[in-house]
């Protein structure tokens, strides 16, 4: 049976090292370029000749715009709109990377924790800075919820601090684990199709269903990531009540 983890191996397409630092162009880099390019091409096609009654590409772009805009407004309020470009970029990149990962022979960049963690970490640092800029030191009050006896702060504050700092980790692990687990499961089940001979029809059916489920998960995960970034942004913009 084929190795189900083989699909996640990073291979060097163009080996490159500058000053001992390995900066090779890999298959992962290639797919990051491809998905960013695909997103850019869709946006360009949709907005090339904007019309009052939109065509197909323009409709798609407008829907994507509205999904992100509504997510931002409903989760973080209208004043969070000024962060729209970053949040939209994150959403489009993850969405395209997840969906492109479903194509045969493709590479799922979001199945690498280094990719998802980098995105989550950028959002986390940015949101923390926004919080400090907005609320000053009052932002730290988040770690000491009001209305509890003073002695409780000894326990509560470490818990609040840990729960704040695991946010980027849970954000990135959620995305990477879902993408990786789905792809491994698909590959393992697909392996059974060959080894079981005539009975391989059963896992084949399951794989067909799983593929549909994976398509749903790919889109949903991009959405969940965006929603959570907005929810965290909400904490930074509005003081705790």
């Amino acid at each position: 049976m084929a190795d189900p983890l083989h699909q996640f191996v990073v291979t060097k397409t163009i080996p490159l090292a500058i000053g001992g630092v390995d900066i090779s162009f890999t298959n992962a880099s290639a797919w990051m370029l491809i998905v960013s390019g695909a997103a850019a091409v869709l946006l360009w096609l949709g907005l090339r000749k904007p019309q009052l009654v939109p065509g197909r590409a323009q409709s798609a772009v407008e829907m994507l715009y509205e999904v992100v805009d509504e997510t931002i407004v409903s989760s973080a309020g209208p004043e969070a709109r000024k962060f729209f470009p970053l949040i939209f970029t994150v959403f489009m990149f993850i969405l395209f990377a997840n969906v492109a990962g479903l194509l045969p022979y493709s590479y799922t960049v979001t199945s690498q924790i280094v990719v998802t963690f980098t995105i989550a970490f950028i959002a986390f640092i940015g949101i923390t800075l926004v919080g400090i800029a907005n609320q000053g030191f009052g932002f730290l009050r988040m770690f000491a919820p009001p209305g509890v006896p003073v002695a409780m702060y000894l326990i509560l504050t470490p818990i609040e601090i840990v729960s704040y700092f695991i946010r980027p980790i849970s954000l990135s692990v959620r995305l990477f684990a879902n993408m990786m687990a789905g792809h491994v499961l698909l590959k393992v089940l697909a392996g059974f199709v060959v080894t079981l001979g005539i009975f391989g029809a059963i896992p084949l059916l399951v794989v067909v269903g799983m593929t549909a489920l994976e398509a749903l998960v790919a889109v949903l995960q991009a959405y969940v990531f965006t929603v959570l970034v907005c929810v965290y942004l909400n904490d930074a913009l509005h003081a705790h009540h």
Partner: protein
Amino acid sequence: MPINPPIDEAALDARLAEVRNARDAEVVRADAARTAGTAMGIGLRIGIELVVGVAIGTGGGFALDRWLHTAPWLMILGLIIGFAAGLKNVFRSADEYGQKWDAADAADRVEK
């Protein structure tokens, strides 16, 4: 041929702001109703919080133990704090959905 009346920019801005606010309010309301539907989204979101909390708490405690030679105490402490932090995140998101559901219910009742 009719001549366009002079544009009162302030009035136009006020009208634009009004429409925008109405739309934003509508978005918040629609989202409250929609969120109630995506149970899978909620499940995907909450499931991992607890796991990561425990893993990071324990791992962090273990690393501190190796560094400070205090095994196994910081790991035990980290496990407890990580578990609590994970639970706190779970409760936080559950609470958020609860509020949205309540808002959707309230909006429904107003309509009926």
